[in-house]
């Protein structure tokens, strides 16, 4: 048999990835982050104490809420990637299951990078605005300018968390596509597992959140994300060709 052009999986996956990325909109993420930033401008925490006529209150700011909400955003986005409408986009190009999954993985990685970058830097936008709109003499110097190393660690940590959550959501989406009932059973099982086997469940979470070395954390996340992705691809391979 003769073909007019030879191609390989990676080339097709790359084309699919670019096609999907072009059709993707980050407007939702931007709006969500701006709304949370607006509400965070009055502080995300506060504590105080006093002596005599003096009362001291310390307002604390962080972009933790933005990062948490970006976690939710990537979960929703990764879940959407497995939906029928999005998967049908694959058929506009020459495709197979592997190239489709690889392009989704590439897209998830891109979403994680953009989500991690924007959520981490959003606190700097808040710092910058507060510097000019409030009394800078009442700002704590040591926390205003993060050491650049800490900033990059935070950004890398956020990207890795997002990638892990994204691949988990992608697997969840695939499970739901395979059997709609799993949309209810899987979260319920997870909840029951967290209640009944709370120690084991917490240990599983601690594997990630108690890791102090960024390098080891990266290894753990990439390993877990790889496992989740392989499972997703296996499930996808067992589905009908076009639903």
């Amino acid at each position, binding site marked *: 048999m003769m073909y007019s052009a030879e191609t390989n999986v990676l080339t097709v996956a790359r084309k699919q990835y670019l096609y999907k990325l072009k059709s993707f909109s980050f407007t939702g993420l931007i709006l969500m982050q701006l709304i949370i930033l607006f509400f965070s401008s009055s502080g995300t925490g506060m504590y105080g104490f006093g002596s005599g006529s*003096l009362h001291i209150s310390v307002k604390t700011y962080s*972009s933790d809420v933005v990062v948490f909400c970006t976690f939710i955003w990537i979960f929703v986005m990764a879940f959407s990637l497995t939906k029928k409408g999005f998967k049908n986009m694959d058929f506009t190009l020459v495709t197979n299951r592997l190239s489709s999954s690889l392009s989704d993985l590439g897209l998830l990685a891109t979403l994680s990078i953009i989500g991690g970058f924007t959520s981490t830097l959003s606190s700097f936008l808040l710092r910058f605005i507060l510097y000019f709109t409030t009394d800078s003499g009442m700002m704590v110097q040591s926390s205003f300018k*993060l050491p650049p190393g*800490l900033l990059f660690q935070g950004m890398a940590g956020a990207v890795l968390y997002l990638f892990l959550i994204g691949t988990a959501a992608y697997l969840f989406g695939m499970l739901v596509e395979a059997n709609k009932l799993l949309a209810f059973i899987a979260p319920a099982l997870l909840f029951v597992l967290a209640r009944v086997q709370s120690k084991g469940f917490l240990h599983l979470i601690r594997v990630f959140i108690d890791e102090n070395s960024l390098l080891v954390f990266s290894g753990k996340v990439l390993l877990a994300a790889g496992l989740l992705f392989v499972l997703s691809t296996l499930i996808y391979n067992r589905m009908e060709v076009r639903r």
Partner: protein
Amino acid sequence: MLNSIILLLIVFLPFLLFFFLISQNKKSKRPLFSGLLSKYLTLFYCGILLLSCLGVYALPERTFIQPLEQQNQPIGQVQGIPDRLVDIAKKGALDSTPGVYKKADSSFQITGDQLELVISDNFDYQNILIRRKGSNDGMIQVSSYMTSSVVQDLDITRNILPPVIKLESNRLKISSPERYTLTFRSFNPDFTAQQFTEGIMRSEPEHFSTFGSQVLYLQIPNNLKVFGNQMNVIYLEK
């Protein structure tokens, strides 16, 4: 951290189910901004974030509240001064001792040879130090001094208000300022960054806090008789 994750899961799961049910019924989804506008918006947003990050690092630092260590004040020195404040005053070295700050300085013209001290109940200064001058110049000089006030390693001395002093017909009224609040703003690193610094943070010493000591230093004419509230009043030798 773990509690917040569990809380997040509990909030998160119903949200997921809700999203799933909604998405099943929704046939077409159009983004709020489509095509090129969305791309430009994303680029613009990322650019703004990057510029604000660079801007923050370029901002001048001198106005910020600074930790003690950056003001070259060892904590040991700050801790020791309040106990020695009266001795320092006796030596006449309040103005020259590092770590003792003059908060306010005022002078009052007085007629007659009697002065009544009226100290309000809310006045929380440790001591009122009175020194008689060598002359009868009819002037009272009042200075307030304080040692470093430190809250969680941050030197807030400059933000503390001095006492309110008024002279009304030979009655020197001394009171603390009206109740006031200092609101500081502190920025915490994200939990994603804190995770990788926990080992370092655990080894850090406890934060140091002290409201310091405050004294009122009165220099009065030699012939002036002082009466009224004499609690915490110490007469210094000439």
